């Protein structure tokens, strides 16, 4: 199994730092971005296996980032995990137009994030595996 590349986008340096530590420890390759603009730049350079993003960020918010991704990469396969509060219904509304988007409840838990990623990749591989054995 190849190492999965995870892109973290958050304007809180400490959040990036602690998540990077936890994810790297779990065997992921981690890249970080301080805002949406930087994250978009990284994705354009090389698409990650998963994007984990905050919503409130300077320059380009998580919402705007998702919308640009949706129009730039309609065939996008990597999932987007958005950290938000469950009570904020506004975020659910705009996310309806975005494919393959998942929500993580704030305050974040590294353990829950790792579980969500693992589950996602396992499911993705399970659905991709039969395709590989077909002639």
């Amino acid at each position, binding site marked *: 199994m190849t190492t999965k590349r995870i892109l973290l986008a958050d304007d809180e340096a400490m959040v990036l730092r602690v998540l990077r530590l936890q994810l790297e420890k779990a065997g992921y390759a981690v890249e970080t971005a301080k805002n949406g603009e930087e994250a978009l730049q990284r994705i354009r350079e090389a698409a990650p296996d998963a994007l984990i993003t905050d919503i409130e960020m300077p320059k380009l918010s998580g919402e705007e980032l998702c919308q640009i991704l949706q129009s730039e990469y309609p065939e996008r396969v990597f999932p987007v995990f958005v950290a938000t509060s469950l009570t904020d219904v506004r975020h659910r509304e705009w996310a309806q137009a975005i494919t393959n988007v998942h929500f993580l409840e*704030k305050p974040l838990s590294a353990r829950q994030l790792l579980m969500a990623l693992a589950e996602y990749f396992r499911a993705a591989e399970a659905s991709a595996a039969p395709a590989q054995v077909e002639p």
Partner: protein
Amino acid sequence: MLGGRLAELWNRERMGLTMILASIAVIGVTVYLSLNLRNNEQVENLRNQGASISRILADVPFSELRARQQDHGPLRMLQLGQDSDEFAYAVVVNGDGEVLNAVNSPAVDVNAVVSGVSADPWFGERELKAFSDGRKVLEFSAPALEQEKVVGSIRIGYFLPTLGLAPGQMPFIASIALTIFLLTPLFYFMVRREIRPIHAVNDEIASRISGGEFNSCTIEATGELREFIDRFNGFMELARGKIEGLERDNTELVASQKLLGYRKLRIEAVLKAIPEAILILGEDGSVSYANDMVKSMLRVEPGDILHKLPSQWCLHEEALNFLSRFEKPSTANFYSETLRLTSPGDAQRKLSIKAYPLFSPQDPEVIFGRLVLLRDVTREALAEEGRGNFVAHVSHELKTPLNTLALYAEALQGGQGEDESFRIEAYNVINDEVERLGSLVDNLLSITKIEMGNLKIDKQRVRLHDLLRDAFKHVAHSGKDKNLKFQLDVPAELSTVAVDKDLLRIAINNIVGNAIKYTPAGGRITLTAEETDTAIEIRVKDTGIGISAEDSDKIFQKFYRSESDQVREVGGHGLGLPLAKEIVELHRGQLSVSSEPGAGSEFLIRLWKDRALLKQAV
């Protein structure tokens, strides 16, 4: 002038004048009748005389009747026996009309008589036209017989008497005229005496009318006049009663009108004082009342829209859509909407509009109009929006440090806790985030209190030197790890000013804290204070990253965070500077900033020295 006098004379003395004229007429008629009577008597005498003479002459033999030379025979005898005034002529003519004998008054031409009118052959009487002097003649005729045969005619003429006074009648006529003439004034005075009470009554009634009085007539009288006065007094009594009733009704009417007018004024004053615009629409939807506030809400003069339908005056499409439904019969519902105006000049304004049905007091089933209330809710809507944004900001700002705390706590619990260096880092981060959370909550509470007006400002005269020194030292201590130079330059002899020292300390703390956050290691932070004639100026200067022109307009807005990476690298919640500004302004002071990006910033607090100067400054 003369006509006027005559009319007055006639009015005053018409009774007397009428009697004089009547007596003159009576005298005239009496004289005429007596003359006429005498005349008739004379004519009758003439007739008798003429008839008898003509019969006598008819018996005289014809030969006797003929004239012989100068002898006129019986005719002369006849003439002599007649009154010369009355006798006109006596003629005997033969069958051919030839005059055989004639005697006559000198005034009469016999030939003219005979040739003018032929003889009547038998006994007869006729009236002939005037002769040369215009007098009329009564002619009697008789046959002249000879041996029982008619051989001619005898014609005797008398002058008809004219209507005139005979000298003998003068005393009689004069006595009658005198009697009537003397009786006239007697009657006049008697009549006057009789009608005097009527005059008095008339005068009294006239004075009542001109004086507008309705008193009884007090004149003493008898008979029919007494009856008239009694009836008149009865009528007056009735009129007086009616008038008193009318006056009473009128007084009540005036009083109730005054009361109504007063109530109307009071209601109008109340309607005017109400801060909402009020429209009262009639059954057909037209405006029957509008107060002055309508002008500021709907941009129309209240006087211009009375009795007009909304479609004739309403400038705002949104308001018209709401109001025009009442131009048609509509249900008795309560209608309420918030209108967002779109017309130029009013864009972004929001009006709350409510329409209540007005039910008839007589029949609660009948709606006779609508009461429409309009209120400008633009500010409330903005405030509501602001509150929503505020809550969203606060929850975000609270969750951000919580998020970091949760992640570090979780990491410490897990395998990362075994790493010594991570543990130290985690403790520091947790410490910083707790502090950040604490300061956020403190600032949030203070700013909310100030904005809600709940904060009691406790002003005391304080020595600014001591206050600034203590506050600066305290905040400088918290930034001691950053390798910054702190410099305090506050003269000890600064005037005392009345401030809330706790609040001012928070403001200084936030401003200096902000400077510490954005000044890289090795930088310098200076606090200076100086006194001018009117104010004390406190400056906090740093050699930090500075503030862009775009940001310097916004840093005093709540929850504003710059997009700059340099700013974002340092944690903040966007409340410190807004709170400092609120506090300074609570002291009627000014907080401003000047900055050069990359070189540093300078915050200036200006506090006015005393109340008089403060007023001047305001």
